């Protein structure tokens, strides 16, 4: 069911190998398979379409038609175009502002915000030697604030003391005040999960943004996300403004097409990848690795190298 692109293109390749050159028709057939492969990888349909258009322009060029190994050429073009669309290598967290630098964590319920908050805190502390404060603004999910407090203990990062009954906006203000008074470099604001279509909760996070002026607003998304990536990316970006993406559960076996969707729809870089439940499981983003994964071809590079 989830054949990689290599499998999908197998038949077409066989034909090509016998004939040796690519016609426009062949390119069309190959691209139809690319389309299906991308959809099975959960790339959002509008993004698939613009991707295919981009590839078509390149693939119908002379280069491919005259190539001795046109099949591999198509794969190479698809792969390279994907890498290009996925954007540059990791940009780190932007801390270019007066301390304490507010960083807002956003996303759907259960996407991995709280865990990622602690992972990022640990990263900033150990690698950048920053003094970090974490605050949970999640007053809704049972034990959410306690979860962040425990994670804070695990990574030895301070968390804002919990005040029962305080609303998220007030907590955010208090976090920034404490951040200033106690000389923190960074204040990480973990928010409650919210649906992209929940007007009330989206307004709440806008108020949080407006009282804290975050330098980074990181959208935390699950690598398993399907077509809903469009709504999530669009709404969070339009309403709150997203500066970067954190993609979690990349340690799973999902193709992760949402990475391409998120990148295209928000125009924002994928900054970090969550690679496990453990608190140090955070990695930099490498577009070529994600590209190979989306195409379902760990073998893509070896194939292309032969081309």
């Amino acid at each position: 069911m989830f054949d990689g692109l290599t499998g999908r293109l197998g038949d077409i390749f066989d034909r090509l190998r016998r004939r040796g050159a690519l016609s426009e028709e062949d390119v069309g057939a190959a691209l139809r398979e690319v389309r299906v492969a991308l959809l099975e990888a959960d790339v959002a349909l509008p993004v698939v379409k613009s991707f295919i258009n981009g590839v078509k322009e390149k693939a119908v060029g002379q280069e491919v038609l005259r190539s001795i190994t046109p099949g591999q050429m198509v794969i190479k073009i698809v792969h390279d175009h994907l890498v290009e669309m996925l954007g540059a290598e990791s940009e780190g967290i932007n801390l270019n502002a007066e301390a304490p630098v507010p960083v807002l964590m956003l996303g759907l319920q259960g996407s991995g915000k709280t865990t990622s908050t602690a992972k990022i805190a640990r990263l900033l502390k150990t690698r950048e030697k920053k003094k970090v404060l974490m605050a949970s603004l999640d007053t809704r999910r049972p034990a959410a604030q306690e979860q962040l407090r425990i994670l804070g203990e695990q990574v030895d990062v301070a968390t804002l003391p919990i005040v029962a009954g305080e609303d998220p906006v007030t907590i955010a203000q208090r976090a920034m005040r404490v951040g200033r008074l106690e000389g923190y470099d960074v204040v990480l604001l973990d928010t409650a999960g919210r649906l992209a279509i929940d007007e009330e909760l989206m307004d709440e996070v806008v108020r949080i943004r407006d009282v804290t002026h975050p330098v980074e607003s990181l959208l935390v998304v699950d690598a398993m996300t399907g077509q809903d990536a469009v709504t999530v990316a669009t709404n969070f970006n339009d309403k709150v403004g997203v500066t970067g993406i954190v993609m979690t559960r990349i340690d799973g076996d999902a193709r992760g097409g949402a990475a391409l969707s998120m990148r295209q729809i928000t125009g924002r870089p994928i900054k970090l990848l969550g690679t496990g439940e453990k608190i140090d499981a955070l990695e930099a983003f490498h577009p070529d690795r994600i590209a190979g994964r989306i195409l379902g071809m760990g073998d893509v590079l070896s194939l292309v190298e032969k081309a």
Partner: protein
Amino acid sequence: SKSTNRLTDGIGGIFTKRKLDDETLEELEELLIQADLGPAMAARVTGDLAKSRFGKEISPDEVKRFLADEIAKVLAPVARPLVLDGSHKPHVVLVVGVNGTGKTTTIGKYARELRDAGKVVWLAAGDTFRAAAVSQLQIWGERTGAPVVAKETGADAAGLAYEALEKARAAGADVLLIDTAGRLQNKQGLMEELRKIVRVIKKVDPTAPHTTLLTLDATTGQNAHSQVEVFKEMVSVNGLILTKLDGSARGGVLVSLAQKFGLPVHAIGVGEGIDDLRPFDAQSFAASLVGLDEGR
């Protein structure tokens, strides 16, 4: 407000008093893809429509009804509520699934529903891994008045499950809901741990767990196939719950899951609140997938 608006607008726009041709079929297929049916299922459903109506005049409403009926046909056999077997004391429900899909919350909701039905409900805090997972379940226990068997974080989950089952049995509970830590299906070690929980439960009651529920997040795309396949293989999942259907995701992957695995879908989650569990209704789910529920 929902993504189905897109679907509705699309179908409405495409099919106003028009003949069903290749172009409209393609657009229709795309609309289904955007509801996460997956390219193969979307092609199949659209193909069925083409077979019976190609070249004929068809109204938007007819199209929607045809599609909803086709999809409902696939889903109807799996729309089966969770039924407790009264001969088991307690009926053991093991709740498993990928991280963050809604296991703990679903247990809270079920606890409320079953308590309202007059059952004696016990909960087991089998997620001994995630920070504050125990407290989270304990709060659900307080909300629903269900006793919670728990140990400290880091304790052996299988041991906890064993103890919980013995206690619930001694207390004459009707049902024991066991929470587990979230795990990705491709993590063999974690899947083995889950099997160990099952093995240990069987030492107390060889027929348990009577229900092994897999929670699926409606936002999940095609990876849901791999989730169902592996969890079913490893711990004999025999029921599904689709959560977060109050969002913009439609959960269309369920259609091919139903066809491929035939596992009952016991309920859907439509919010974070205690009352946000609903029976799974094939007709209305299918109607909502194609946007037929709009304007009601």
